[in-house]
Each structure stands twice: as C-alpha cells, then as structure tokens.
C-alpha cells in the first residue's frame, strides 16, 4: 500500500476513533439552551420576513408575544394603540376561523396574520399590509 493510501486510511481511522462527529445533547434546564451545541430544536419564527420588510421600509416596530397561554408572536408597528398591530397565528385556517366566528372583527385577515389597523395613517398601513402579505399564497 502506498504512503498516500496509508495516510488516508489513518486519517479516517483517527476521525472514527475520535468520534468527534456526534455532539452530546445539553441537559434540560441548561441556560440558553437554543445556543448550545448538540441541541437540534429550532424555533420557526414566522416574523422574520415581515421584520425584514418593515426594516427596509424604515418603519419603527417592536417584536413581542401577545399575552396569555397562546404566547402568539406579534409585531407592533409604531406606538401601541395607534400604529398597526400584527398577530401571527399558527395557520391561515385559525386566523380565518376567528373572523368567521366573529371573534376578531377589528382585524384584517392576511394569511395567518390578523392585522389591526388601529389609527394608523393610510400610507403606513399600505406598507404594513404589503409586508404582512409576504409568503401568503392565493
């Protein structure tokens, strides 16, 4: 066997023996779990495209979670109760269902979002609606 082949085989053996591939999982309760190596969970935050859109439109916004057990991801554009509010539901169907059942009459349904216009200016609302519509099919 040539020297090069021996070197390749040794390299692979070293990799195998070092078992450097598999990271141990962090224990439950570890602080900052999501940033630990070996933890495969990942929050699929639905707000990312909208945040990026609002940023490019230079609109002031704040990300937060709506109160309650549901802990719904939300974005407040501008000042609370004045600027538009976006609340993200898990599916389009839930958002649509809330409107059909008359539970959220003060909101526009855009995909899985309920957008509350509040007392926003028309130009601002147009931009927010365009951002809310990102990724919405149909």
């Amino acid at each position, binding site marked *: 066997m040539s020297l090069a082949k021996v070197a390749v085989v040794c390299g*692979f053996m070293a*990799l*195998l023996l070092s*078992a450097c*591939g*598999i*990271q*141990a*999982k*962090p*224990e*439950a*309760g*570890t602080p900052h*779990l*999501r940033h630990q190596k070996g*933890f*495969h*969970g*990942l*929050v*699929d*935050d*639905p707000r990312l495209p909208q945040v990026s859109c609002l940023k490019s439109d230079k609109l002031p916004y704040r990300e937060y979670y709506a109160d309650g*057990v*549901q*802990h*719904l*991801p939300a974005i407040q554009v501008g000042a609370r109760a004045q600027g538009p509010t976006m609340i*993200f539901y*898990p*599916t389009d169907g839930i958002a649509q269902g809330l409107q059909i059942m008359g539970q959220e009459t003060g909101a526009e349904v855009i995909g*899985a979002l309920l957008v509350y216009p509040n007392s926003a200016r028309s130009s601002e609302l147009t931009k927010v609606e365009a951002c809310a519509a990102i990724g919405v099919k149909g």
Partner: protein
Amino acid sequence: MATTTTGEKLSIPEAIESAFIPDVDFPLPRFIKELPAWARVALILFILVVASLVLRTRSVGQQYWMDEAITVGISAHHLSAIPGIMRQDGSPPLFYLLLHFWMLMVGNGMAATHWLSEIFAVLTIPVGYWGGLRIAGKRAGLMTAALMASSAFLDYYSQETRMYALMTLLGMFGTIGFIRGFVFRERRFVILFSVSEALMLYTHNWALFFGAGSVLALAVLYRISGEEIRENLIRDAIFAYIGAGILFLPWLPNFIFQSTHTAAPWNTSPRFGAPVQIAQSVYGGATVASILVIGMLVGYAGFFRKAERASPKAKIALVLFSLIFFTLLLGWIASQITPAWNPRYFAPIVPAIMMLTAIGMSRAGVVGPLCLLVALIFLARPDVYAPQHKSDMQDIGGEMGPLMHQHDLVIVGQPEQTPLAYYYLPAGLRFSSTIGPVKDPSFVNWINALPRYRAANPNKVVPAELSKLKKGQQVLYIRPLTEGETGWDAPWTSEIRRRSAQWGKILSADTQLTVEATAPHNYRGACCVADSAILYVKK
C-alpha cells in the same frame, strides 16, 4: 471465466450500439466535437452530477420526520448494540451500520446525515452510465445517467436519512449484474448480481421481492431463448441465489424473528394504483411519465414486428420489463396478506425502470433525446419533488425545550414519533408513549406493538404516569395532527388517532395540571406527520 455465448455477439457493447441505435448526428459546438470520446462522456457526467447536486441539496439541512429520527437514533448506539435493536425495529442493518460510521465522522446533524444518502444518489449517475453502456451502448448509458440525475424518486430520497438511495444504488448494480450475467451470459456479472442481491437483503426487505421477481424474469428469459443462452443458465442462477443466501445467513435468525414478531401495522393493502404510484414517485408525475413513456415506446415499436421480436435487444427489454413487473406483482400480492407497500419501497426497481426507459429512448432516433430534453425541463425544478416541511417537531423542540427541566415527563401520542421528540428535545427528560413508559426513546420497539398498544388502557396508564410527577414538575403532551383521512385508516394509525384523543381528554380534565404553553406557533404544513404540543405543570 468462460462465457457461454455462442450465437449473437452480445458481449461487445460497441457492436450492440451500432446495431441497436439509429444514428442521429446532433449539432454540437466544434470544441466539444474535438474532445476525445472519453472526455465528452466525462464532461457530460460531470455536468449531470453538478446539476443533480443543485437540484438535490436545497433541502439537505431540513428537519427530520419520524422514520429518519428512528434511523439516526438506532445508528447512534454502540456498534455491537445495533443488531440487537434492529430485531425490535424490523429492518435489515446495513444502512444503520454505515450511518453509524458516517455519524462518527461527520456528526448527527440533519444536513450531515442527509449527505450520506446524497452520496449514494450521486453514485447512481456514473453507475447508471456504466450499466446503460454495458447493456445497450453509450447513448443508453448517457440517457440512464441523465434519468438518474433528474429522478424525482432520488430528488426525494437523496435528502432523507433512510436506506432508499442506497437501495437504489444497489438495485442498479443488481440490475446490471442480472442482465449482463444472464442475458449476456458473463459469469462475473452473475457474481455482481449475487453480491448485490445479498447487500440489498441487508438493506431493505423488498430485496426479497426483487430476488423472487428476478427468478420469474429468468423463467421468461429461459422460455424465449435458444441454447446459446439456456446452456448452464439454471446452474449459474442456482449458484447466484445460493451465494446471496449464504451471504445473508448471518442475519437470517434476526430476519426470521423480525418476520414473526414485527410487522408494519401502519400500512394498508394496496389496490390497483401501482402504475399511478410509479408515474408519480418514480417518474415525477403524469406529464413527465407520459413524455418518457412515449419516447420509450417509439424506441420499442420495432419489437412488435415479427423479425425483431426474437432479437437480443428485444430479450433485454422483455427481461428488464419482467424484472420490474414481477417484483411489483409479488410485492403487491404479499401486501394483500401483510401490508408492505409504499412507493418508497420501489427503490430496487427504480434503476430497472430508468434503464428500460433509457434503452427505449436511445432507440427512438431524434424522438428519444427530444423526449428526454422535455422531461428534464419538467424535472429540473428544485423543491418540487423534495418536501419543504417533513414535520414540525424541530419547532416544537425549539419552543418547548428551553421551558423544560430535568426529569420532566414527555408523553408522545404516536409511539413511533418518540425518537423524533427525543432528537429535538434536550437530554435529561423522561419519556412515555401512549403504550406506557419508554426506557430508550431513541428507537421504537415494534415487537407485538399492536396488541400491546390495544392492551394499554389510558384510564390505567395515564394516572400511573401522572402519579409519578412531583409538584412543579411538567408534562409535555405531543400528539399527531390527524386532520387527513389517508394514513389514519390502518389498524395501528386509527388506534393512535383515537388513543391520542383519549389521553388528551384525561390530561386536560386533570385538575392538578395547568396549561403553561402550546406549540407550534407557526405551522407550515408537513409532508408526513406533524404534531401539536401542550406543556402542563403539576400544581
């Protein structure tokens, strides 16, 4: 190594090519025409490999679904423990052992493990070329390579940590060995067939149907052939199958145990939709299938003339067709007794289907390449054939993981999703499924699973589990979304849908439990099975 060919000179691919394929001179740029033949082929194969990687790596890092998590969970065990665990799982061990070594080198992340399948899928391109070349000449080889590079089946399974891409590669070797070994009567290819069949038996149980289908295809070959092929055919075949059997002997006791104790209770018996399933999962949809089949049939049209019916090329086509047909037929019949039918199990015959198609198209003059080109345009759409969202457990893990503490309890409504939850949640948690406590959540014990599941009365199991919880401890209940009808009508899955609701009712009615959180907050849909999760705390 003697070949027994005495009549037609089938062993020289160039001779076949000249007789087999009507000449079509394609207008190519001069610099390409000036390249040596081997360099042109190498260039085309390189382009095909790169194109297939572009198509097949867009979702390479995406999350697992339950089957993949079970595979990774089993393969993460110590090497010596894997065969024992496989007895409870029901699959053969080869892919799991390969994945074990692969993970030691590159890790158990999603992209890392998907790449193993990616490599097997890429290898089908040059091997497909070689097979097509050896069976029907260069054009058939290049067309086989192109079909393997754009195969919708491999688009899907090259990004899945399961054995199907490996099975396709082995099926390719098996098919080449079968045709060259028995139709061309080259004994070294009989050995290739025998070894491939043994490796397939170690990879997936559908190798049994492939093996049995090949026996029936041999019978067809025997029936239509003259002495030049019949001579020693039966002897060579017996050696091939005995050889494969001997190689499989070490696993045979485990196989018998698995066959008698584990089953696929989530599956239902197939009806008559196999052609539709092949069109969808192997060819990539009705449009692509129609285009390719038209190109193929134009090529084979000559075989309907009496003069060509007994030609060697007609024999190759008929034997390939028989191999595909009998493998599917046997799988279909067996699945009427014990369901084992799923388009992903077609992996061993995908190469034969592609090769049969490519050989036909290579005979179709200008129609063949045109059909191939149009089909490639339809197939060259990333994300169409690979699911964008297999599950939502990664998100559930991401949302719930940081809220959980050591020794909290995780209850999984669908037992086979336990390894998926285990993969995405942190360490130090206790696991239970709707069957009862789970000692090792990294795999599923399928031994007599259905009777055990039916025997697990929720009114007894749930209180026993909850009584072990101390005040302040949490319980995460993960249950499948069962909104669709297909997939939830098998004996196992219909039981899961019902049990998950029964467990949900008992947990929600428990006055000692308070809801703390729910997930997911962003559900994008899932190709396979998705879940919802509720986190309770004991007051």
